């Protein structure tokens, strides 16, 4: 009887083996890679806000310190989002006719709060506390990036656990003097030796520990 398979079948056989291997291997690798892409981490993602608030302007042009609005960053877990009232501290005088600020005025007079969209979103089982990081010499820019260059705030750090652990396992390189906390431009000394010594005595003076117990963040 005639053969059911032509010799070409051999090729298909071998090819299918290769295919299976690549799909399995590539799948894992792809997954591994995908979660490291800015897209999967939601970086550089423009998030629409109810008000076109421009940090560039407030930080660079007006030289307003972060802590004027985010008053709670040094005292509490949450940095705090300014109340409508606080916006109007200035905007009652300046730009008080600007249509851009209409939603602010409306909120003030109706008493309906402004609903901002959260940019840096941690899972509920992760307890982050601003005050301790600030007091141990971690700058705003370390996690939030160059806010002073952002028309609209976007996420610059993955906020994935491994990212947190990088610093928690070895805080030294990320420390800065407390008076430079809100600085967007501060850099450690170029000379690596100097940088090392600075980091070392910041570790000492601020009594910084590497804290990697689970309950440091998960309770």
């Amino acid at each position, binding site marked *: 009887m005639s053969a*059911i398979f032509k010799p070409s079948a051999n090729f298909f056989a071998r090819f299918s083996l290769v295919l299976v291997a690549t799909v399995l291997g590539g799948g894992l690798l792809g*997954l*591994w890679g*995908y*979660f*490291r892409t800015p897209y999967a981490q939601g970086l550089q993602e423009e998030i629409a806000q109810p008000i076109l608030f421009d940090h560039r302007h407030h930080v660079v042009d007006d030289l307003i310190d972060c802590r004027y609005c985010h008053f709670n960053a040094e005292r509490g877990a949450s940095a705090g989002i300014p109340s409508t009232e606080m916006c109007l501290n200035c905007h009652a005088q300046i730009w008080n006719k600007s249509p851009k600020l209409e939603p602010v005025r409306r909120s003030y007079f109706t008493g309906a709060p402004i609903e901002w969209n959260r940019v840096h979103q941690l899972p509920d089982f992760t307890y982050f506390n601003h005050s301790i990081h600030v007091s141990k010499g971690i700058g705003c820019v370390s996690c939030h990036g160059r806010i002073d260059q952002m028309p609209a705030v976007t996420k610059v750090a993955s906020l*994935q656990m*491994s990212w947190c*652990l*990088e610093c928690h396992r070895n805080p030294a390189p990320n420390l800065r003097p407390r008076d430079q906390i809100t600085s967007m431009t501060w850099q450690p000394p170029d000379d690596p030796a100097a940088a090392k010594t600075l980091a070392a005595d910041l570790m000492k003076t601020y009594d910084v520990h590497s804290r990697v117990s689970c309950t440091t963040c998960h309770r």
Partner: protein
Amino acid sequence: MTPPATAAVPADPLAPMPLIAGHPSDAQLNTELLAPIFGPTPQAWKMMVGMAAMGTGLLFLGLTVTIARGIGMWGNNQPVGWAYDIINFVWWIGIGHAGTLISAILLLFQQKWRTSINRFAEAMTIFAVMQAAMFPLVHTGRPWFAIYWLFPYPSTMGVWPNFKSPLIWDVFAVSTYFTISLLFWYLGLIPDLATLRDTAKKKSQRIAYGIFALGWKGSSRHWQHYRIGYLILAGISTPLVLSVHSIVSFDFAVSLLPGWHTTIFPPYFVAGAVFGGFAMVLTLVIPARKAFRFENVITNRHLENMAKVMLVTSMIVGYGYLMENFIAWYCGNPYEAYLFFKTRPFGHYAAIYWIMLACNVLVPQTFWWKKARTNVAWLWVASILVGLGMWAERFVIIVISLSRDFLPSSWGNYAPTWVDWCIFVGTLSFFSLLFLLFLRFVPSVAVAEVKELNHEMQHEKAHAGEHA
């Protein structure tokens, strides 16, 4: 060499009962052994498949309910955190063992009598392991995370699994075991698939079998590679027979619970596994060989040998029980003593304990007598009893130990719910379903090997004079 068994033929009382009755030709063997595949679909088979399918439905109902609502749908509680889930897991894994033992170890020891039953055994192994492998996953509270964290990809957390935990060892042991068994089974199938391809009438069948036959031509080169591969796999899977169930036994042995914290567990679990496995082979083979008229390739001698293996392993298991109790007494640990001499024999679940002893220790003792070993009906009943006994053993180890541990304040009993039963019955049905399909679509006896054995025997016969 095969143990001498006195034949039923009065002529020569010392001649061993033949492994293949009569002097069939290859063609005869082909037609005979492939009949189930090419023959018409038996009504009984259809009915059984139907029932098995319905039972499998129960399994999926049980699993969906569990995943949708949580482990609370089972009877598990504080303190009995594990129950039917892990009982079934250990039981099925155990059953899986006979397959590898028969096909690999007996092969290496050149036990010819394995030839006509190894295919059954291997299939059974794979299907049993499939049942077992399900439980480590579904017994967790959040299976979706379990997969994710045991194979920690995409690994964005900088945290790895805990390699100190026996559950992790299980994951690796079971998956390895399954892979190897599958390959071993498939490799063995290839020549037969080729035979099927060549003897099939329908084109569809020929293509289907042809694909799986991987272009087997039966050339000497093929045979050579085949042999090497088969031996290598046999070599790899032999240690697995010992390792897998040892590791499963670690789940208990490394804990500090009275009744779990026992150093004898690894050998005793392996023996128990082989014991239960052979029982299951018998439970399956006996009806199958009747249905498909394989009596002259799966002769009573096969059954008898399996009975002997069961007798031996049963005594090892019995020794295990004995040792457990001895140590419980000898170590003078009050918690151990309470469990072994109060809870187990007289406690809330005493009945199950005594069933275990009766089925696993007493029943096989009948196999000292040839009458019992060759009485097919009794063999079948006994094999089922042993299966039951081995299930009871896991119940005794898991549930009873958990229900009475250190602090009397936290003692509590366990009762299964309808979901527990659905899943248990479901796995049995799913297993049967797979096995029925196997019987119908895959040569359930290793045709090529039987033919080979047949030739060897004919040859021996022919040249008997010369060697004399």
